[in-house]
């Protein structure tokens, strides 16, 4: 009998790392081969920075460094939250294409597929952050904090988006088609990012919206980034809600809760799905 090819030696950890590397590579290749994905995820934030700066910037009066500096944290948060939805549509597409059935008949780690997928979002989100920062600096954004605080702000945004990618990956495996996940995330994420302090100070919102905005985790993310970038306008009235008072703690708790729930849930889901 012709001999079966033997795997190279390894243990659970090295296998997991190597499987994660292969699936991350696969998602990187997708970014390279389908450049539209990256193009749109870069153009959209640039467009938002410019549109908001020049359309609203004149109308909204923000003390201190002005509207652009206020806006940037909001645009960052919105962009990375939307960037995380790729994991949803990509998992749904992979399921439809049957590639998940292929993976599930291989002696690989299922969790590694999800790690590779969420890593893909992280790469896209990091690239969009860099492009947005460049654009922001060009139109007048100023960072008024220490480099360490600045990096902490960036890390917090990416951490939140990473946790959110796991939520989306789970949803992507739970729906029948990639289109559903695209449309649904649009419907949910637009209100979530707009009814917040991302683009306008939430103290000016009508009461029901203001309360929603104060409890909205996106507001906490935006407020954290604003604080860490030194972009909180002087005289900002912070709401009484606990998340509004403790934005960084809220984001960290939120990230932990999302990961604790959705990492095991997604891994369990992956182990049973089939086209």
């Amino acid at each position: 009998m012709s001999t079966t090819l033997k795997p190279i030696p390894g243990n659970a950890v090295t296998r997991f790392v190597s499987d994660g590397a292969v699936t991350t590579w696969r998602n990187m290749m997708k970014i390279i081969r389908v450049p539209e994905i990256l193009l749109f995820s870069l153009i959209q934030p640039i467009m938002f920075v410019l549109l908001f700066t020049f359309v609203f910037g004149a109308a909204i009066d923000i003390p201190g460094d002005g509207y652009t500096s206020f806006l940037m944290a909001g645009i960052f948060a919105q962009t990375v939250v939307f960037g995380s939805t790729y994991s949803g549509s990509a998992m749904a597409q992979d399921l439809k294409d049957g590639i998940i059935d292929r993976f599930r008949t291989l002696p690989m780690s299922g969790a590694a597929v999800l790690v590779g997928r969420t890593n893909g979002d992280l790469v896209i989100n990091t690239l969009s952050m860099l492009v947005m920062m460049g654009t922001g600096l060009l139109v007048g954004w100023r960072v008024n904090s220490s480099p360490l605080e600045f990096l902490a702000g960036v890390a917090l945004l990416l951490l939140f988006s990473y946790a959110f990618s796991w939520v989306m990956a789970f949803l992507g495996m739970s729906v029948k088609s990639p289109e559903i996940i695209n449309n649904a995330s649009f419907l949910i994420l637009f209100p979530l990012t707009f009814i917040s302090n991302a683009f306008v100070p939430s103290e000016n919102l009508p009461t029901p919206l203001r309360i929603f905005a104060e409890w909205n985790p996106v507001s906490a993310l935006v407020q954290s980034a604003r604080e860490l970038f030194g972009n909180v306008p002087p005289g900002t009235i912070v709401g009484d809600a606990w998340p509004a008072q403790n934005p960084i703690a809220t984001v960290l708790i939120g990230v932990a809760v999302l990961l604790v729930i959705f990492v095991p849930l997604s891994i369990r889901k992956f182990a049973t799905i089939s086209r």
Partner: protein
Amino acid sequence: MAFIEAIDLVKTYSPKGSPEVRALDGLNLEVQKGSVTALLGPNGAGKTTTVKALTTLIKPDSGSAFIDGVDVAADPQAIRRMIGASGQYAAVDQNLTGFENLVMVGRLYHLGARVARQRATELIELFDLVESQNRTVKGYSGGMRRRIDLAGALVIRPPVLFLDEPTTGLDPRSRIGLWEVIEQLVTDGTTVLLTTQYLEEADRLADSISVIDNGRVIAKGTADELKASVGGLRVAVTVVDEVQIDAARAILNRFGSGEPAVLNGRTLVVPVSDGPVALAAIVSAAATEGIGLHDAGMRRPTLDDVFLQLTGHAAEIDEAEKESAA
């Protein structure tokens, strides 16, 4: 214990808003080491469900399955290390090239990088994809995708191979090419379980055939045994005009030794006890009643007849129906 063994597999699906489907209804299967077993059955018989249960993709509701003594449900990772599988519809990464797809599969079997590339090159040649190996699969034809998917199942030269309708969608040349590949693998000792709706394919490749319908095995044996089980000669007639099919059926009923069956819209087959006499009687009765015949003749039983007899319906696949189901 046989090399692959399925005992009393039951799998039900309860799609929303429709009645429960028993995709597997107490299916038993034994595949001997180094043999090719074909699962032969019409659309919806449970072939894919059986393959999915054996390749760890779905968990049956009850029953158990073993490959080389390893319990599929208890140790799926051990099963995955020794099988190669190709599902009914190609499962390939559209944004990778054919070559990259195979290297990826090799890496996920944890082959070394060099071995994975070397094996990918071999398989690209074996499946006649050298020219297109560096194009992304997105631009491949259906048959080319299928071949990459089949190649993916062979990456580690697995001792056990599962192929779900491996030749559906292949052109005649690729189909014969694949048959030769499978025959070579079996010569080298690989155990193969394949599903097919092509009786010709089961006849040519399989040492043993399990006919399945409604989620259970309704007959098994070699092609010859199965043919012998349905008895002797047949008379088959094809009417010119489909509206006369019922009149023709009445004639076949009169002179045949069993129930006539419709093979496709215009062809009827009936087992007969005395071939030449029955044929002459049927042809002259058709002439008397003014039924135009395209064709009339005697033949030995084929697997088609086995199918007809056992399932009550023909095994011909309806490509249009398959497409809409996909």
